């Protein structure tokens, strides 16, 4: 089982790096969907010590339905309606963002080495993976121009937080977990509506068109 779990963590980080290098939006959305599916699997793999199995199943199925199916579907609909396929000229190029992402992974390992967990360790890769994924998400949001890519970045960021939440699956109250999934859904839902309007006003999903408010 342990090697399976290792494998999932590694794949999550590989997807982070892939996203930083990817210019095709379709491929990026599929990668985020796959990452969501991996997280749902992770919930099950890490649950060996959990007390409440029903709770774990709910979280896993919920994560799969929202992160791997529903949101990617919404995103595909958004890019189909706006007829866009590529991220044009990101603010930070693909190679530099890959390197920043790689540096993030290294730093995440260093950081988690420096901060010993107060709880019995769940898996040595958990904290570094969570931090690296959060870092990737931040990087995507600030370094890309397309609204769709920025939302993808936000989803990756949320995925990182979700990985970290696994540490607390046993002790965290139900409503915090429910809050994660509900708010994720709600955030993207509202973002989707906003994007729809951006689409109608500017006939593209380029947030550079949103640059008339400056000092």
């Amino acid at each position, binding site marked *: 089982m342990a090697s399976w779990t290792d494998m999932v963590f590694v794949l999550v980080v590989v997807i982070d790096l892939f996203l930083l290098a990817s210019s095709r939006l379709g491929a990026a959305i599929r990668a985020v969907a796959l990452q969501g599916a991996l997280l749902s699997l992770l919930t099950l793999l890490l649950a060996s010590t959990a007390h409440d199995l029903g709770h774990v199943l709910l979280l896993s199925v919920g994560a799969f339905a929202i992160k791997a199916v529903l949101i990617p579907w919404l995103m595909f609909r958004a890019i189909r309606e706006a007829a866009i396929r590529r991220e044009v000229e990101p603010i930070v190029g693909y190679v530099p963002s890959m390197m920043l992402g790689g540096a993030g992974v290294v730093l995440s390992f260093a950081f988690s080495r420096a901060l010993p967990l107060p709880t019995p360790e769940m898996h040595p890769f958990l904290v570094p993976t969570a931090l690296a994924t959060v870092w990737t998400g931040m990087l995507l949001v600030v370094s890309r121009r397309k609204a769709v890519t920025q939302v993808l970045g936000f989803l990756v960021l949320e995925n990182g*937080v979700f990985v970290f939440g696994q540490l607390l699956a046993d002790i965290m109250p139900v409503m915090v977990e429910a809050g994660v999934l509900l708010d994720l859904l709600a955030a993207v839902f509202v973002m989707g509506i906003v994007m729809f309007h951006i689409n109608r006003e500017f006939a593209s999903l380029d947030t550079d068109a949103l640059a008339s408010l400056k000092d």
Partner: protein
Amino acid sequence: MTPVVLLAPLVLGFAGLGWPDNRTRPRILLAGALIHAAGMAGLWILPGPPILEGYLALDAPGKVVLSTTSALFLASAVYAQGYLRRRDDRDNRVFVGGLLVLLFAMTAVGLAQHLGVLWVAIELTTLATAPLIYFNHNARSLEAAWKYLLVSSLGIALALMGTFFLALSGAGPGGPKSLLLADLVRAGPELSKPWVRAAFVFLLVGYGTKMGLAPLHSWKPDAYGEAPGLLGALLSGGVTNFAFLSVARVFQVTRAAGEADFACDALLALGLLSMALAAVFMAGQRDFKRMLAYSSVEHMGILAVGLGLGGSAVGGAFYHVVNNGLSKGVLFLAAGNIHRAYGSKRTDEVRGAARRLPVSGPLFLAGFLAVTGTPPFSPFWSEFVILNGAFGAGRWGVGALFLLFLAVIFVGMGATVLKVVQGDDRGAPERAGFGDSWLTAGPPLVLMVLVLALGLWLPQALQGLFAAAAQIVAGS
């Protein structure tokens, strides 16, 4: 009484979303505001017990912020009656419903005694606000709403990470394994210190984004510039105050864990940076609503400095929460009236507001004097208490910078405000039918009277409340 205050806005919010008639719908908003204010008044007379197993309760810090917001929301709801009547070309379904849901979310933040509940409520304030910023349905308000949503969502995601860190710090053997404030504070030194520190950083960045502290303020000028004045009042006098309350809650835990020095330094740095940045951007600002946004950055900075100084300054910060809420109400509502009467918010086009709007124009000037700390208005006293705290604690550098920034801001903001208020309004752009009326000029006038009254005489009950809030948050 607590469940009424919490749930009435939510129920009426849904009623507002379902109400068919555009003309009578704003009355639901007024009803919600009245019930909320009456409920809060009831809670002053007869404190209610905690609800939901102690997850929600009204303590002193919550009471300060919630009472202020209740008054501000009531003033805004009255103002909305006049405002929405003049804007009956626009469907106000989402606006009325959204404002009431926002009031519900803010009330939940004020009552939350559990950091998870607090986080969910903060998230809800963001979701409820984004469609409200888009009320004017043009490209500029869309840009503002998009920026607000994206920046706030990032902040909220980081705040959740911080909340997890805090939960983890108490998850060790013997730890509280809880996110209830009381449990965390009781556990205090038992919490894992490195994780408390990391949690404070993430939560300060996360909720600091909602407060609009520099350098996390980038959404603020756009959102305040494009949103209706009434929403600007509720954002800068309500939502940001609640974000400050959230930071104060986290500070409470951090202090109990013995990491107060670190947290204070971080708060002082961000607070002074916010004041400095506001001073720079306020000078030469050509858009008077964006200028108010930088004033909001400044006042969030003042709150952070007050909390960071500790000691008597913390009570001053809670006093300033009240003054910030009320005086921002005056400024934004008056600015909204001026904006509509001229159809412009640029200072090279708007002049002579005192002549064209005999109430709103002078109110804008009086609001400026109040908010920049001119005696005898109440913000002068709260800023004085904070400054006194700085010098009393021997923090000469902090006190000197605080004074310097206040002075620069007074000059910078004054130049813009005087341009708008003074002069001859002939030849300036004009839109007929948007003069002062009781419904639009009355509410800021009442708020201004409150600001003046609190400056002249601070009731004993309020002084006691500020002291109690400071005692809970900073033990001083």
